[in-house]
């Protein structure tokens, strides 16, 4: 499966064309190397969810619904809420996705988004205790991919963050107090890069992904901290390349974060 997901079959001519463009400092869709595709965010799209966001990153489309339900804490963290992430690569979204249990791609995606949120302590889990050791809020982050045109790491990460930021803890529905906004500490944003020949471009689209030899996702917070990294594919990076990518991810991530926090297109109807 591994090879089908991120490689595909792009004609050699397209590969050469993309590399030729890179020599001239541009990309197949006209973007600069650090330019992210247009981002559209529609929060509150799913009323049955406690928070939701429909995100378009170029033509890639991801819907995230957050459900928050009471549950038992883990024995070793009796005074903390629980978060859990899941990605569904439903076959509606791409001819290369198949029905069935989560593929290794879906699992990697979910875990990378999970680490970004978890390691930055984005959600203030300590405020999600209903009764210490007995009952805490469980935050389910379900990412439903609806149209796959490259770079699901960033699309899912952005949509998850927007949906969390939209979420209300439904205390009234479960008769444990008043509803409150899901408490957030940090806003981690993943930025993914693809290495194509000698060049490294941000937010690769499907064509770029299909010929990339290496991928690197760096998740950074609004404080300029690095919270998660994940290298993928069969190629390698030099240490110098990694350092540059981290720096680029910090500045790109900052812009994306502003858009998530400020630029949401607002609630639908």
């Amino acid at each position, binding site marked *: 499966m591994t090879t089908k997901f991120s490689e595909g079959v792009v004609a050699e001519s397209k590969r050469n064309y993309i590399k030729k463009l890179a020599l001239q400092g541009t990309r197949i869709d006209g973007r600069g190397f650090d330019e992210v595709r247009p981002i559209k965010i529609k929060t509150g*799209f*799913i*009323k*049955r*969810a406690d928070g*939701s966001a429909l995100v378009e990153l170029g*033509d890639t*489309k991801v*819907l995230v*619904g*957050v*459900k928050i*339900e009471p549950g038992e804490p883990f024995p070793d963290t009796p005074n903390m809420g629980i978060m859990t992430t*899941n990605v*569904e690569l*439903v*076959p*509606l*979204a*791409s*001819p290369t996705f198949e*029905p069935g*249990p989560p593929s290794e791609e879906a699992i990697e995606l979910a875990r990378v988004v999970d680490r970004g949120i978890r390691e930055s302590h984005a959600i203030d889990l300590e405020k999600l205790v209903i009764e210490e050791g007995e009952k805490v809020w469980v935050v*389910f982050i*379900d990412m*439903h991919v*609806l*149209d*796959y*045109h490259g770079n699901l790491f960033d699309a899912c990460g952005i949509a998850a963050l927007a949906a969390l930021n939209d979420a209300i803890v439904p205390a009234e529905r479960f008769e444990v107090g008043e509803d409150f906004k899901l408490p957030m500490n940090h806003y981690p944003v993943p930025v993914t890069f693809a290495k194509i020949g000698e060049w490294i471009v941000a937010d690769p689209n499907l064509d770029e992904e299909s010929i990339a030899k290496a991928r690197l996702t760096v998740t950074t917070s609004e404080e300029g901290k690095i919270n998660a990294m994940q290298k993928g594919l069969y190629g390698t990076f030099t240490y110098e390349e990694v350092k540059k990518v981290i720096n680029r991810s910090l500045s790109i991530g900052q812009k994306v974060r502003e858009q998530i926090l400020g630029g949401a297109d607002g609630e639908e109807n």
Partner: protein
Amino acid sequence: MMGMKSDIKLIDDNGLRIDGRLPNQLRPIKMEVGVVKRANGSAYIEWGGNKIMAAVYGPREAYPKHVQESDRAIIRARYNMAAFSVDERKRPGPDRRSVELSKVISEALTSVVFVEKFPRTAIDVYIEVLQADAGTRVAGITAASLALAHAGIPMRDLVVGCAAGKVDGVVVLDLNKEEDNFGEADVPMAILPRTGEIALLQMDGDLTYEELTNAMEMAMDAAREIYKMEIETLKSAYRGDDDDN
């Protein structure tokens, strides 16, 4: 499903329903095609509180090979609910209900596609329920039919889904969630509007013959209305009103 007891009054003294509708009134419906660029055809429908997306891939080589039919395409519909589409989070993946619905939807869609034109292929129809509000199967098959048309799959008609049922002793059209939970019967149907043929028909509850035929007629009448919306949606798409495919 049907017949949970409740004190909720579903029809008020003026004969109006909990959401203000008349017994034979549909909920608001919005349709759009071309929502999944990656697919060969796609559609999105909002029907009351339902939000459903459908996409079509194919005709493409059927895999694994042993599912191929030498003289026709197979239509494989997959009805799936997002984890967050219902009140209590649903575990991802197929449950028994979605397996059954996928089967009857596959069969209903097969009745309308010229499957004999595409031997050994599969036409995959994926229906994702993003938000559920009763009537997802009939809304889903309606979206699936639009997606098939948008994909240019040759069909002898569109398929239109619509349900009717009974609540508080009254036969009503197009049940919403409360009516579905606390009502007395539900009759989901899918028809081919040109000929009136019935491609999908299920029923559960408790109905006399008269109530059942009333309900069926109500659903079939409404289906013809919905058909017009389908046609209009496809026409707009080809005119390029709201779709850049």
